[in-house]
């Protein structure tokens, strides 16, 4: 153990603070700089759409499984999209075995909220036969390695996987009430919007950190996530408790997030077209 490691173990707070005083973070980044992002699509061949995303050391895999279901009576011409986030103990010591914890549930709900707020998918596109058949997209997001900023990584993975989805053509025989799936002919789904999330950790009134690592999250007090559409307009703001923020800080966050939106969407676009 080096002296630095000992310091970090015994005095984590002062260790961390000493970096912030120099406007740096322990991993060498500035306060508002982001980690490199890598996106790969089609990583799970058995899924209908999939992606693997790394944001720094945070690694997230998203697999989308399409199933044929019956639409609900209330919305007979709509399909379903069901995002689900899993955080297993193998990705971080913070998570325990058992039913999904608070963080996993909050992230699932966040993804669901963003998809419906930004109108990413027109659910009527997923309908095959009115009141009879519709696609149900199960989007499973699994974290392989947790190093902070799960919201951003999960949303990038979900969006990349959705763009990778190829649904087989379904023909429906009305007389016999039978549906046949043609696996040879597949079609991608059209996405109406491509939202990108940017998360900030609030450390104190004057110090905020963009793209936090797990260490930043434990040291800071609360995250703020802003979700922007591809044209740079604000879609959703998510702040579940945490340190007080002044309304004008949000403007700074939105400005910083704008650059990220463009970078992330070009990255996904490039990977999809390859």
């Amino acid at each position, binding site marked *: 153990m080096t002296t630095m490691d000992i310091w970090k173990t015994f005095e984590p707070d002062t260790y961390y603070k000493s970096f912030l005083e120099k406007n740096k973070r322990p991993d060498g980044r500035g306060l508002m700089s982001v980690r490199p992002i890598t996106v790969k699509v089609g990583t799970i061949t058995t899924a209908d759409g999939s992606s693997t995303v790394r944001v720094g050391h945070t690694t997230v895999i998203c697999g989308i499984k399409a199933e044929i279901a019956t639409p609900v009576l209330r919305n007979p011409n709509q399909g379903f999209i069901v995002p689900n986030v899993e955080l297993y103990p193998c990705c971080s010591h913070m998570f325990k075995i058992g039913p999904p914890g608070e963080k996993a549930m909050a992230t699932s709900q966040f993804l669901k909220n963003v998809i419906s707020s930004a109108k990413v998918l027109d659910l009527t596109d997923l309908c095959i036969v009115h009141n009879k058949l519709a696609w149900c997209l199960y989007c499973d997001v699994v974290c392989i390695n947790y190093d902070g900023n799960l919201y951003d990584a999960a949303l990038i993975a979900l969006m990349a996987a959705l763009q990778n989805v190829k649904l087989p053509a379904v023909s429906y025989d009305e007389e016999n009430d039978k549906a046949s799936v043609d696996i040879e002919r597949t079609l991608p789904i059209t996405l109406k919007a491509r939202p990108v999330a940017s998360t900030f950790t609030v450390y104190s009134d004057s110090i905020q950190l963009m793209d936090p690592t797990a260490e930043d999250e434990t040291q800071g007090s609360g995250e703020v996530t802003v979700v922007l559409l591809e044209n740079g307009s604000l879609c*959703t703001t998510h702040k579940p408790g945490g340190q007080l923020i002044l309304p004008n800080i949000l403007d700074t966050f939105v400005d910083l997030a704008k650059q990220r939106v463009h970078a992330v969407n070009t990255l996904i676009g490039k990977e999809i077209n390859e």
Partner: protein
Amino acid sequence: MAKHACQLNFLSRSDGSALYSIGNTVALASVNGPGEVKKSNRHYNRSHLEVCYSPSTGQSMIGERTLESVILHTVEQVILVHLHPRTATNVTIQEMQSDGLALSTSVNATCLALLDAGVQMKSPFAAVTCCLTPSGTIIIEPTEAELKESEALATFVFDGQALNVLSAHQEGCLDSENFYACLRKCQTAAKDVLNFYRRIMEEKYSSDKSYN
């Protein structure tokens, strides 16, 4: 603004409780603690906080769990948790009647239950929900029917001192202009909520003989 009503000390056995209603949404919050804590939840430097939200029918699902997590992170920031190391504080919220304002009603009920229990806090906090109609008007504290018609809904929790934002929960798309318009309207409404808190607390202490 919808009508706010509150009854303190609704439950006789808990340390503090409040029955709170905004319009037709009613929630009952009860606070126990700081008290005994499970070994695995024991923190050397602060009190452990637990929030449990139970809906009026059925089991608590993912929506309720999200509500719990928003309330937990809000309350955690306000309570002086470091004053009671190696203890636990429990907040239990029971939904009594639902008309779309579950989050803001439960947050306000929690605040008054905490005040009733005498848990030390930095400041009180007040939640206000608003929604944006397709025609572009902002309704403060809408009803369930109005929410169904609306484009987006936002709930803000403000602290009682400078009315800074403690938490923000949003469903639907709001651009920055509308977001700030909602924020400002809710901020004004939060002042009334905080005045209502003051009145309730004044009533409590003036009617209770042991304080005079």
